[in-house]
């Protein structure tokens, strides 16, 4: 494996025992977007690949939170033609395809990236940077050719790119013609969690936990040991879970996100939560199984050595180049992995616990285990004109000069105008506001007395860049007040999609697992650099996207309703 430069672009080149493969990576991804332009990077990726049509060789594009890359497998000539073609397309995107590609993205709805932890991202970060992976590609309708060109000019440049080639030599005649531009560091991850460890109520039978740890080989080993511990305890010994998964996702800021999930039957949700927390506790209080550690280290060393032979470590190293991180030599990584001790894993387990976020199964609480409830509402309401709810006595919409609030009993949801991540706007006056912290408000003139008059006021104050116009809704689909309906009925409306969540999350987990196994053809799992998670987990995602956001929004509303009933 050696580092060279091709047309001013840093590249990692190394031999492979398998088919020749190569890829071109840019340091741009969903985390760089805004919610109101969510999907723009993916759209660029699709447009850039359009010219290849139905090629004979394998090629694909991938958009992750931090990177976008185009990769292919074929002969030297095919690779050279593909990479040059991508650069040519990026310089001159086929804008005549814009509407068709948008439609494709909308239809396929495969724009969401991630896997186990999409709603985790939303709850951890809010509706910004690393939280955006939890949202649909809402920006698509608002994205025009000018915006696309500006996005490409900012991010798809020579200074923000890196290349890998798994071959003995660089394909003859390879040229990469990209515009100049500076490197673009990834944004700092923001937080929507005032305190960690934290929890929020999920509604399926799956418990999901994620945590931020230092990006280092020991953290990858910890993730694999955690999976073995969960599998042994929850599945083999206690029969509570069928499917247990973990993911290790390194980030450019020197941290890595660990995600772990375990499913359960409806009657075992409390037990799977308790059993899951017991496993986390055991690891952080020193009960790390030495045999597990030895086994995992053995596997990792084998995987990495084999990956090196196939050129499977090259993509990860190219991503290191484009994000300004040092290239990692195999020997050094192997030495670090071999040096991992159970004591070190106990330390990492402690760090992981303190930064953790837990999605509980079936709406259960986790405060008993010492976790803080993630915010489901806002601290304060704005001052302004109040419009009474036509459905629920005492509930009201308040539109002020600083923002909008909905108040019901003690529950307050506020989106300030200077914190609007996106506002979806329907011609009938319906507005859906998403604040940077992930709090959402549905402003429906049909549901709050006199609120139609407040819509122009609201529209004037929400920044234009945050607005995304929506196609007209059929009059039949407009919400109608149900004055007799009490909280129960409203909650009932929300539980429809939540029940779907219960069905699809386990399905998604299994699919993602399958996807990550079957799709990693070129890039073997590399514990420190890139795991399989960088590849699109198409199967799981296609299933999730159809329902995903509605559920998240519903969960938040449901949570509020439950709290109101409990008190």
């Amino acid at each position: 494996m050696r580092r060279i430069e091709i047309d001013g672009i840093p590249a990692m080149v190394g031999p492979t025992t398998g088919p020749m493969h190569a890829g071109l990576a840019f340091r741009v991804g969903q985390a760089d977007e805004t919610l109101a332009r969510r999907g723009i990077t993916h759209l660029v990726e699709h447009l850039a690949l359009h010219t290849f049509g139905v090629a004979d060789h394998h090629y694909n594009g991938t958009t992750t939170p931090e990177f976008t890359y185009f990769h292919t497998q074929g002969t030297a000539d095919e690779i050279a033609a593909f990479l040059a073609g991508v650069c040519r397309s990026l310089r001159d995107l086929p804008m005549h395809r814009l509407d068709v590609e948008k439609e494709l993205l909308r239809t396929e709805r495969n724009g969401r990236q991630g896997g186990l932890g999409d709603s985790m991202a939303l709850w951890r970060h809010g509706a910004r940077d690393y939280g955006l992976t939890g949202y649909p590609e809402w920006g698509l309708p608002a994205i025009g050719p000018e915006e696309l060109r500006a996005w490409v000019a900012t991010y798809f440049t020579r200074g923000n790119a890196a290349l890998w080639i798994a071959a003995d030599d660089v394909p003859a005649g390879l040229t990469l013609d990209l515009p100049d531009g500076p490197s673009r560091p990834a944004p700092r991850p923001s937080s929507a969690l005032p305190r960690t460890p934290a929890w929020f109520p999920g509604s399926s039978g799956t418990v999901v936990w994620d945590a931020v740890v230092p990006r280092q080989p020991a953290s990858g080993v910890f993730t694999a040991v955690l999976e073995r511990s969960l599998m042994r305890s929850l599945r083999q010994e206690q029969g509570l879970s069928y499917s247990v998964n973990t993911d290790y996702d390194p980030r450019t800021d020197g941290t890595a996100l660990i995600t772990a999930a375990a499913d359960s039957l409806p009657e075992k949700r409390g037990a799977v939560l308790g059993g899951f927390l017991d496993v986390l506790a055991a690891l952080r209080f020193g009960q790390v199984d030495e045999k597990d550690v030895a086994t995992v280290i053995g596997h990792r060393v084998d995987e990495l050595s084999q990956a090196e032979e196939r050129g499977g470590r090259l993509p990860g190293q190219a991503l290191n180049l484009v994000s300004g991180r040092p290239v990692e030599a195999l020997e050094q990584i192997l030495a670090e992995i071999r040096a991992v001790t159970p004591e070190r894993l106990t330390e990492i387990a402690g760090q992981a616990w303190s930064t953790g976020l837990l999605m509980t199964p079936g709406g259960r609480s986790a405060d008993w285990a010492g976790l803080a409830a993630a915010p489901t509402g806002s601290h304060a309401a704005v001052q302004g004109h109040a419009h009474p709810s036509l459905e629920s006595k005492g509930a009201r919409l308040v539109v002020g000069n600083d923002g909008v609030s909905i108040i019901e009993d003690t529950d307050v949801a506020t989106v300030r105008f200077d914190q609007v991540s996106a506002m979806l706007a329907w011609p009938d006056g319906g507005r859906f506001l998403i604040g940077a912290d992930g709090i959402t408000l549905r402003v429906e003139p049909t549901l709050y007395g006199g609120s139609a008059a407040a819509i122009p006021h609201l529209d004037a104050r929400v920044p234009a860049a945050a607005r995304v116009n929506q196609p007209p809704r059929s009059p039949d689909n407009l919400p109608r007040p149900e004055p007799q309906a009490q909280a129960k009925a409203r909650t009932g409306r929300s539980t429809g999609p939540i029940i779907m969540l219960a069905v699809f999350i386990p399905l998604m987990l299994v699919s993602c697992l399958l996807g990550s196994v079957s799709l990693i053809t070129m890039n073997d799992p590399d514990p420190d650099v890139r795991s399989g998670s960088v590849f699109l987990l198409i199967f799981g995602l296609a299933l999730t996207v159809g329902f995903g956001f509605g559920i998240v929004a519903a969960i938040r509303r449901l949570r509020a309703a439950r709290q109101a009933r409990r008190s």
Partner: protein
Amino acid sequence: MPLTLETDVAKLWPAFATFRDALLRLDWSAARVVLDSVTPAERTELITLGSEQRLSEDFLRGLVRTNPDDPAAFALLGKFLTVTGWNIRTAARAQHVSKDQWRAFYHWLNLAEQVLLEGAARHPGDPAIWTARLPSARGISLGVDEETRRYNRLAAIDQHHLPGQAHHLQQLLPKWSGSFELAHAFARERTAAAPPGYPQGVLVAEAHIEHVLELSGHEQRAYLQQAGPDLRAAADRSVLNPGFVTGTYAADLALGTFAVVLQRFGDREYAGRVFRLMGNRAAMPPWDGYSDMPSGALYAARAWALGGQN
């Protein structure tokens, strides 16, 4: 037979007196000596009784901090925090507990849960810790499934751990989201699984008395008749079995429970046999839960059962 019954737990169980006194003078080493000298079930029982004393939370927290390798310290602190919460909640049915009581109850039980979470993580094979995790789970409604998971972990360590079985039986009752079918089945199954002469038959007796108390007068009569043979069979297998060892506090508790239930069933013959086995020893907890005047109830039941033949 003597007319005065010994009901003082400190007299009935000298080890308890030693343990309690050591705790009250903050002498953990001496307390540990006692805990290390008894059976696992007695150790759990001692920790429970100890947690009901006027202990200092600071002292117990210090113990856990300085002795993280000592499972008994975690069990005692966890149990103490749980008891503190239950004392605020009181044993009243949920609808008679005030909002403030609930808040304090959850506060203390959550603290207990966190101590016991760490304790179980550090000492996964300790039966006292897993036993302590049962009433805390039940109190804050973690669900029958989670409580059962914890009971199963306990059973994997000690399948005849009566203090834990008694807690699990409570969770299986309808008042804690179980059913009488579940509770009876568990009681019978654990009684049958225990060797003859083990006290596990009290689980059957407890399930029956809990059931009877939920029935109306008319239903009660039918129930007493129908369940009588089952109760006798449980007594025969446990406290009335020749292998049953008397003279321990655990035996006193088992006999007392049977005495209470047999008396309620009107089974004078079996009650008489149980009282004769008790001799002049009488543990009060079974009577405490049965009457506002437990001492009076005890003597009255005894007089009835023995038909005036002291």
